[in-house]
């Protein structure tokens, strides 16, 4: 770990200039960009989304995707090197823009080559998406030679624009970028915003922004959204301290009142969400809530205790099946037909037993061995539930159907809107458990175990209890999710408990920010709610998902909202230096590492 040296070095030492960006790198990125743009075209993304307008009638989504790639690579090519201690800040200027344009130009030429190939050969035998329509879209109706030149020029312009982002003053950029993202949101989530405006009884907004309800964003709409959000972020960026800092600076009683007020406000908003949003969005939110519940459970196992569990879906299945057997009249073997509320304690017991069953064999294992064994357990659970052998108990591939709705006293929960509330309640409970356990004896034991098992054991942490308890707590939380899932869907089938679920939950906590409750929540929203709202992208959903995961891990490995500790681990000064040396180190081997670190 690097030492925390925040005190400024006495600036008698002359700062070495940070080298300007390299054209070689721009060329390399340009060639990668060409590959990326060709892939975007050849996988059918361009042709599929061409009819969809981002901003009616001037920006079609397909073409936008294509040149967005050039924009991104231009941005990357123009990124100045990180400034290290002992170095003057990087100078940005025309050189960056030239690099960006160069990268964009090369990328565009790649598409040009593809276009020529497509007109000369028939490639559809292998690459099914290289259709005449794609030629039409790419060439903009021009003859091939002119089209290649135009594509290259547009790409170069897009690359230069991407590079230009680095030149904009920070405050301006921090307002412009989020505003553009909001425009994208308004444009892509037309159904959601349409629903919201109708729910809020401000239908006139739809006419103002969109061509029709669920239609495309108009030019006027785009400008309105852009200006509004730009102004908002500009105003917020002008404050020199954030809301959080100001709340923390308040005297204690005032702060508590503020916090209670904020919590009450959030609760009221949450109370109205399902009523406003209608069944479709509520269903998505319920699904996200169930995933969030599991993610919070897995967060304890992986985030706190450091036990990489790839078969977490098994506990979810145990919860779902325990709930189904205890409540459904259709359960094949044993069917006490309890209400879900009465069944919950038994579900918890079943999950705890499952947790112990999984945890016992892995007590001696570590790392990858543990991961693969848990993965094995996840698969075993799914296959057993699916098998003919146990079909008399679990219904085999037919699953268990006819699970009754959740009833609490006189209240019956049947629609997705109704289910929002119990799911939310359980999420709150899980969040409370997560936070409460963090600084408890158990939580400290888990974290010690995560850092170093051998040392923790030597310090008197009982590894056996710690591992068992982590798995049991995680299993119980997942089983709540499972029971709610079964009761909400009304049936459980073995194929719902695929390994992909385990992986999705793991990805939620890592992308969101491991060990942090707000982070995990945001992760669930981004990874479950967004893909479900963007149904029109479902064909390419996993492609975007995969690219997002890689990009996220490269740029921000600690997740959206990390726990402080983890962010520190991942962003030490040493890593920045390594990255720097990787790019610029070869040229002057002699005095690479700056000596300015006191």
């Amino acid at each position: 770990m690097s030492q925390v040296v925040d005190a400024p070095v006495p600036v008698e030492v002359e700062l070495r200039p940070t080298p300007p960006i390299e054209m070689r790198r721009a060329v390399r990125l340009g060639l990668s960009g060409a590959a990326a743009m060709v892939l975007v075209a050849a996988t059918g993304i361009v042709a599929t989304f061409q009819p969809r307008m981002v901003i009616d009638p001037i920006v079609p989504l397909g073409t936008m995707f294509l040149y967005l790639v050039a924009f991104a690579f231009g941005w990357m090519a123009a990124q100045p090197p990180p400034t290290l201690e002992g170095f003057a800040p990087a100078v940005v200027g025309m050189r960056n823009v030239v690099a960006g344009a160069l990268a964009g130009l090369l990328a565009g030429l790649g598409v040009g080559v593809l276009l020529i190939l497509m007109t000369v050969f028939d490639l559809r035998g292998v690459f099914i998406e290289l259709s005449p329509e794609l030629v039409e879209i790419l060439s903009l109706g021009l003859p091939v030679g002119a089209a290649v030149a135009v594509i290259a020029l547009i790409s170069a312009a897009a690359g230069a624009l991407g590079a230009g982002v680095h030149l904009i003053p920070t405050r301006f950029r921090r307002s412009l970028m989020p505003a553009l993202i909001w425009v994208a949101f308004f444009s892509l989530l037309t159904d959601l915003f349409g629903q919201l405006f109708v729910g809020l009884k401000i239908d006139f907004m739809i006419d103002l922004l969109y061509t029709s309800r669920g239609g495309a964003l108009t030019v006027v709409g785009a400008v309105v959204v852009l200006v509004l959000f730009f102004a908002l972020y500009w105003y917020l960026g002008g404050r020199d301290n954030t809301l959080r800092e100001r709340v923390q600076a308040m005297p204690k009683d005032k702060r508590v009142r503020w916090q209670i007020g904020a919590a009450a406000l959030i609760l009221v908003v949450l109370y109205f969400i399902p009523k406003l949003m209608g069944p479709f969005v509520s269903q998505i939110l319920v699904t996200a809530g169930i995933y969030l519940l599991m993610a919070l459970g897995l967060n304890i196992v992986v985030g706190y205790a450091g036990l990489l569990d790839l078969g977490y879906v098994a506990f979810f299945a145990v919860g779902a099946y325990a709930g189904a057997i205890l409540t459904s009249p259709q359960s094949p073997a044993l069917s006490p037909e309890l209400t879900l509320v009465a069944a919950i304690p038994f579900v918890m017991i079943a999950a705890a037993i499952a947790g112990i069953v999984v945890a016992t064999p892995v007590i001696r294992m570590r790392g990858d061995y543990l991961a693969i064994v848990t993965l094995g357990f996840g698969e075993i659970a799914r296959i057993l539930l699916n098998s003919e052998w146990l079909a008399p108990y679990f219904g085999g591939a037919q699953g268990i159907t006819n699970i009754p709705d959740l009833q609490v006293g006189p209240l019956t929960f049947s629609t997705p809107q109704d289910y929002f509330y119990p799911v939310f309640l359980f999420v709150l409970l899980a969040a409370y458990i997560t936070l409460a356990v963090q600084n408890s004896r158990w939580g400290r034991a888990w974290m010690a175990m995560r850092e170093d098992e051998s040392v923790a054991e030597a310090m008197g942490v009982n590894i056996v209890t710690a591992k068992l308890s982590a798995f049991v707590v995680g299993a119980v939380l997942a089983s709540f999710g499972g029971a709610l899932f079964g009761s909400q869907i009304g049936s459980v089938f073995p194929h719902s408990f695929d390994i992909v679920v385990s992986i999705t939950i793991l990805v939620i906590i890592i992308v969101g920010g491991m060990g942090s409750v707000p982070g995990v929540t945001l992760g669930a929203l981004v990874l479950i709610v967004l893909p479900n709202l963007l149904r029109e992208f479902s064909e390419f959903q996993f492609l975007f998902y995969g690219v997002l995961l890689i990009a996220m891990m490269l740029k921000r490995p600690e997740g959206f909202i990390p726990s402080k500790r983890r962010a520190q681990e991942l962003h030490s000064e040493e890593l920045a230096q390594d990255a720097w040396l990787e790019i610029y180190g070869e040229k002057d081997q002699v005095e690479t590492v700056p000596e300015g670190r006191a």
Partner: protein
Amino acid sequence: MVYGVLRFINFAHGEVFMVGAMMAFYVASGLSTTSLWTSNPIVSLLIVLLASMITSTSVAVIIERIAYRPLRGAPRLIPLITSIGASFTIQYLVRGLVGPSTKAFPRIEPLRGTFEFGGFVILRSQVVVIVAALAMMLLLYLFVEKTRTGKSMRAVSEDAETAALMGIDVDRTIVKVFAVGGAMAGVAGALWGLVFPSLNFFSGFLPGIKAFTSAVLGGIGNIVGAMLGGVSLGIFESVGPSLVLAGYEIPAFSQLKDVVAYSALVLVLIFRPTGILGERLAQERG
């Protein structure tokens, strides 16, 4: 099956395998219309193998460059996630490029039919696969144990920092590991086409997980172990159900083959928490 040196779960390895198999499919169906296919099947088979090896190797190296190299030194979970990301990306890129339909390999006439060996009926194609797999294992073993590059791979696997101090270029060695792993996966992909003649963009996922399972079963960072793990996992899977479960009158026991395989894995790891051939090395490092 070169998981050992990498020391993390590379979900994308199955996809490397799938891409190789896809390439093998296209080359094979291209060749099957020419006369070479019938007149000289061995040569054409070699061409197919070569094509799939080259494809898989380049894909593996590209993945390494984009998704793993920048993360050297990051905590283990991070490359795990990028490998999941890479896996999704490749799966759906392939789906987009060549479509979601299931592809059927063209047949190779001389490889059809069976012959008997000591009372067992064996498909000819299976013989080819077994021979090829043994040959590749032998080659890999010799490569890793006898050549200079193999030696540096083992050194990096044991301790990357010390290896770097000893003058080994860690990055280049790891690229080579990926290349070799990719080539192996490519061969496996082409062989897969011989035995199971159907293939789609999702075919790589389960073999990838199985491959990792066998590597763990044998003991991470140990090539002989990985081979042993692979073979024993295969045996557990194919023999286990009929041998163990049939006796208990369990219906449709073949459904449970994966259960047997994974239970065997759990049992083995309970008694040998570092795999069948896991060395003290693995224990020390934890």
